[in-house]
């Protein structure tokens, strides 16, 4: 029996997945072959401005669709994300805000902040993902029915502690030093809002949205230290958990459409 083909593409969050796959391939049998495509390269920008609009580099779009057409994967995994610093609530807003998420207890929102109606908040957040929102429909024709998008990892709670050793994000450390660190519960809710927007965006394109691995959450909804590599990214453990999720999806029979 031929191995199933999984094709994953995206930005920096691909790293843990590739690392975990390479390790597992050496030590055990995997039920699928993983091929990946990285948007980030040193020799060209992955985002360019065309007609006053930021878009993914058309070369990427071309290469990506060529690979998918040639490879004919059983499953496509997308790992695109927005601006990490915004997604994880690390930018101090001019005025703190919150909203009532559908299904939440009314007390979950912080009433000391400005309450913005949820639908307005979601629309405003979706506008931040126009880059992805414009890109997906352009490649949708070559994606198999079995396509899913991975949610970016949950935010870290102990940001200050991480930044003491995370030299990659020195600028963020400086910014936080200058403007302060938004409260953890607020950061958690901003991540929730952004992931809801991403879910909405993908599902409107009939792409299944995969939550972060359950085991990676701590009781407060933050990323467990044993699953992270730096301020924003998961580590090889996180990658392994993703591989398990992907295996699960393959076992389910793949086609789930917009459900999750």
């Amino acid at each position: 029996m031929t191995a199933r083909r999984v094709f994953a593409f995206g930005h920096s969050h691909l790293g843990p997945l590739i690392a975990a796959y390479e390790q597992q391939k050496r030590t055990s049998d995997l039920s699928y072959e993983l091929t990946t495509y990285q948007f980030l390269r040193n020799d060209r920008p992955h985002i360019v401005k065309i007609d006053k609009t930021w878009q993914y580099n058309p070369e990427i779009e071309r290469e990506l669709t060529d690979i998918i057409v040639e490879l004919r994967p059983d499953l496509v995994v997308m790992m695109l994300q927005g601006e990490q610093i915004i997604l994880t609530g690390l930018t101090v807003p001019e005025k703190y805000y919150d909203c009532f998420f559908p299904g939440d207890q009314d007390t979950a929102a912080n009433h000391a902040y400005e309450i913005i109606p949820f639908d307005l908040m979601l629309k405003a957040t979706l506008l931040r993902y126009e880059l992805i929102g414009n890109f997906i429909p352009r490649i949708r024709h070559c994606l198999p029915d079995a396509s899913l998008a991975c949610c970016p990892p949950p935010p870290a709670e102990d940001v200050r502690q991480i930044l003491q050793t995370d030299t990659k994000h020195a600028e963020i450390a400086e910014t936080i030093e200058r403007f302060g660190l938004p409260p953890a519960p607020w950061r958690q809710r901003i991540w929730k809002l952004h992931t809801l927007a991403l879910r909405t965006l993908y599902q409107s394109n009939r792409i299944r949205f995969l939550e972060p691995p359950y085991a990676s959450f701590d009781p407060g909804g933050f990323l467990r230290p044993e699953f992270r590599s730096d301020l924003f990214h998961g580590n090889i453990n996180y990658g392994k958990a993703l591989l398990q999720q992907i295996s699960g999806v393959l076992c389910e029979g793949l086609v789930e459409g917009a459900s999750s």
Partner: protein
Amino acid sequence: MSDHPYRNLPAASFWKRSVAEVPADKVDPVVRGKFHINQMDRVATAGSCFAQHIARHLAMSGFNYFVSERENPVIPGNLAAEYGYGLFTARYGNIYTSRQLLQLLKRAYGLFQPVEDVWHKKNGSLVDPYRPQIQPDGFASLAEYLADRQQHFAAVRRAIEELDVFVFTLGLTETWASEEDGSVYPVCPGVAGGTFDERRHRFVNLTVAEVCADLREAIEFIRVRNPASRFILTVSPVPLVATAADRSVIVSTTYSKSVLRVAAQEIADKDENIAYFPSYEIITGQHARGKYFAADLRSVTEEGVSRVMELFMQHYAQAVPEAPPVRKDSQAMSSEQEIAIGEAIAVMCDEEALDR
């Protein structure tokens, strides 16, 4: 030849000299402002659809247009406008009648709470009966609705207490009221939310005396909290979309505008800090020959709004160097363009829902 009271009157007092013999775009029914507004004065607005044009031009014309309920900076401007932010000083939507204004003031200070406080849509979302189109898809939950309203009332209080000049555009005399407590709705229940029930809702057509009483009470209410406040009353030149009275909408429009016009004059004549600004006359006067109306004979064109604001600036602005933008090319526009502009600027008009 004997002397008489008309001999030494200024040109503005004579039709021939100020209207018939003057180019249409030079006719000036304002003559002089009753007071001046400086660039530091916070100018607040409320009123009918036409008041939105005034608000928009004030914001562009160098006045200190006062917005006490601004969208959170995380919300992009275009999206915020769809949700009623920035159209007026606070996010109250259209305030068509004097009674609605008075009611809002009382509600903002917790002095009145209508019995009919929320409308439920079939999809489960909630509508504010007193701002029915402020939230295009309704509020998702009661908690969200109440939180938003609480913020809104705080913004209204802030507006009242901090404004320097309040420009209120009177739009209608016809309204619908609750039989239970007399609260009035900007549009008839059932049109943009809620359910019309003839046992609970009654048609009211305000009289001059009622509009005057409402305005006096509203102005006094504001002055108690902000003694230095000054007021400019205008009457919207926009005809009624529909009338609930058993007669032609043309006849009802004349009644409604006449009542509002008389009431505004009565109130303004007795107080040096209350002015009447003749938007109505600028747009509907014979000199205009209807050119300030779009093809639907109802919407005011951008050229008309610009003329109103040009005169507003000329007579009320103190030492504001820049004149408001006037569309010099507007006469060359096609009817289609006028309709498009009319539609583009006729935003957030609750009343429009009556004829959908």
